[in-house]
């Protein structure tokens, strides 16, 4: 029974009270996520070098795998942006295409990350090896778990898009999940710098 007139320039996801409230609430949630990752980063940086005689990051990190992961995730953020662009232009097809590509890139990222983790464990660096590796696996693993959640979440939203098309409700969900996806990208940039680059020059 909402009888407010919206200008045609107002995106669909902002055309309902629920939409506006949920988007704002999600931004605030991301603020809490920043606090969460900051704590993990602080923990990591405090424990850097505490390898207890075991392998250190400099010996195990390889630039090529990390660069591929970075490339996949950063590109997925770009395609996610394109998906929103097509959504704003009311193109369900474009939205599906680019969200699909985003998911594929995200899955690729996860694949490489899992491969990387298995490799480290194989080389004798696991969660239980030393404080350093505990911090590494929990920080990078928390990010990876977030990516996994994001992929599952976006798949659920794609099903709902298929069922309902572009409505204020479904576009809101797409938009919020895109905020989440970009946020994971930002966190990765910090991981790339503080964990991998720093680890390799140590």
């Amino acid at each position: 029974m909402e009888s407010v007139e919206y200008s045609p320039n107002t995106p669909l996801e902002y055309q309902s009270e629920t939409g506006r409230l949920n988007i704002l609430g999600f931004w605030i949630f991301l603020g809490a996520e920043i606090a969460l990752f900051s704590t993990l980063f602080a923990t990591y940086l405090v424990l850097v070098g505490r390898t207890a005689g075991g392998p250190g990051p400099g010996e195990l990190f390889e630039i090529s795998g990390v660069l591929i992961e970075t490339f996949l995730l950063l590109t997925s953020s770009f395609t996610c942006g394109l998906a929103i662009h097509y959504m704003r232009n009311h193109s369900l097809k474009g939205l599906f295409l680019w969200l699909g590509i985003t998911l594929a890139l995200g899955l690729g990222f996860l694949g490489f990350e899992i491969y990387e983790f298995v490799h480290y464990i194989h080389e004798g660096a696991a969660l239980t090896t030393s404080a350093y590796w505990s911090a590494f696996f929990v920080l990078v693993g928390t990010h990876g778990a977030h990516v996994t959640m994001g992929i599952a979440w976006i798949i659920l939203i794609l099903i709902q898009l298929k069922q309902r098309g572009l409505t204020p409700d479904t576009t809101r969900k797409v938009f919020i999940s895109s905020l989440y996806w970009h946020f994971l990208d930002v966190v990765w940039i910090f991981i790339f710098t503080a964990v991998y680059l720093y680890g390799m020059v140590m």
Partner: protein
Amino acid sequence: MKLDEFFVTGDPLIYGADVSIALTLIGAIFALTYFKKWKWLWTEWLTTVDHKKLGIMYIIAAVLMLFRGGVDAMLMRAQLTVPDAGFLDANHYNEIFTTHGTIMIIFMAMPFLIGLINVVVPLQIGARDVAYPFLNAVSFWTFFMGAMLFNISFVIGGSPSAGWTSYVPLAGLELSPSVGQNYYLLGLQIAGIGTLLTGINFLVTILKMRVPTMKLMHMPMFTWSSLITMVIIIFAFPVLTVALALMTFDRLFGSHFFTMMDGGMPMLWANLFWIWGHPEVYIVILPAFGMFSEIISTFARKTLFGYKAMVYSMVVIAGLSFLVWVHHFFTMGAGGAVNSFFSITTMLIAVPTGVKIFNWLFTLYKGRIRFTTPMLWSLAFIPNFVIGGVTGVMLAMAAADYQYHNTYFLVAHFHYVLISGTVYACFAGLHFWYPKMFNHRLNERLGKWTFWIFVAGFNLCFFPMYFLGLAGMPRRVYTYGAADGWMNLNVLATMGGVLMGIGFLILVYNIYYSFRYSPRETTGDPWDARTLEWSTPAPVPHYNFAHLPESKGHDAFWIMKQERKQGKTQEKKPYKPIHMPSYSGVPIVMSVFFFIAGFGMVFSWHWMSILGLIGVLATMVIRSFDYDKGFYVSVEEIEEDQKRTTL
């Protein structure tokens, strides 16, 4: 695992608890069946998303937890009254002070305040519900299930015994091998989810759901204090989430964050814990400040003195609260420069707090004071809290802290701030807003008995502890020798504790007595109060406001009443259907799955925790596919409700 390892055995106190828990459960099930109330319980309460009902459930849970934490306190006092007492052994005593502290902070103070915030804040800002009613129910039920998980530890598996701060290595696997510490980690983790969601929910509610005419600087002070509290929650609770998760990994999966070996760093835990823990004490004190502001202003019949100064001082307190955490462990040896920095930031907090104290005093100045029960609690708060605050500044001096650290001086200090701040506020707020929740007032005569006995008992209990601390009595010891000379003051403290217990019992009796005999409210404004929650009729309709009220400045309802006295009448506008959210069973089911997952992790039964987590995810998927749009309250129903309104 054998059955006698699963259940706690061998202590008559525990058997007594087993029997009383079983009897209470059987009694509740019998009563619900006999009076055919199961359906009512489910449809009206367990599935509700109404902020008023959720608030009431928060408060009921908090009062139960106050009882549990209070019993712990009485047991401790009983053990410490005379030297070399044999009432509790060392381990049992350790468990009791751990659960006492954890329950009182996490499962009593916070839910009591969040309960009052739930009931009052949407009404104060003229909203019909919170921004996310569904999430609000999730918040409540995760808190409740977290609290239950923590509480069953004392009959199943054994309680945590490393103190509410859970310092490692004591709380680590080597020195605390039992499952008790796991209960602490999982119980707090699950309840913490709810608190974070509350933080987001009420921040958005206060920012976006106010009546359009209410400016930020016209909001009631309790709403302001809630807003600032929510910001602290949003930035502090993720730190706790991480700290708890890391210790859980250490204990369950063999990582080395806080261990003594393989590069772990025990002091990292202390830092992370207090980076959350110090803001936490402001999370439980700022809403209390807000309540005292409302109550003092109402019963002094004056607008709050220094409104802007009140707001800014809370903002400053919130900022400083993140910069003082090291003062909890000055003796760790961080060095002179670090200790000096945190010493100074700690002392700085006294400045905005002092501003607030003077503002309350100036609000009282030349006011026409009515000594109602809520006002008495607020008036007692001021001198008692100042004692707690001044001794806090003494503790803030790093060099002197080497003397006070880990003594009863500290115990006395934080009970003086937490009880005379938070607990007095909970009691004041409960008496003050009780008619909004239950449509009748608590009996004033019994309320005053509670007040005088509790306040006398409180001071008798905790003031001697300052001197016990100066005489060298350390905290967290289960007994002492006669030669120490601490008995006389301990006897006084125990007498005070008994008085506080009696005060609490009178409060409980008052709830029963008032339910039976108090006259029902007719006006919705029993105290001649000033803010918008009092403009709602009695009982408050589930949609709160038939017409959204207008806010013309500070104390919006007071202005409305003045205008009415001058003969200005508002034109009758026609009612419109009101949109409200639907109730949902998903939050409680989701939280039960959280409980199952947590219980599985406590005992490392991974099949059970995976099952629980799958359940949690499944309920989230169900929620994601739920496009329920709520319903509309019809004009007829609104008109029927408004006939009851006398204003």
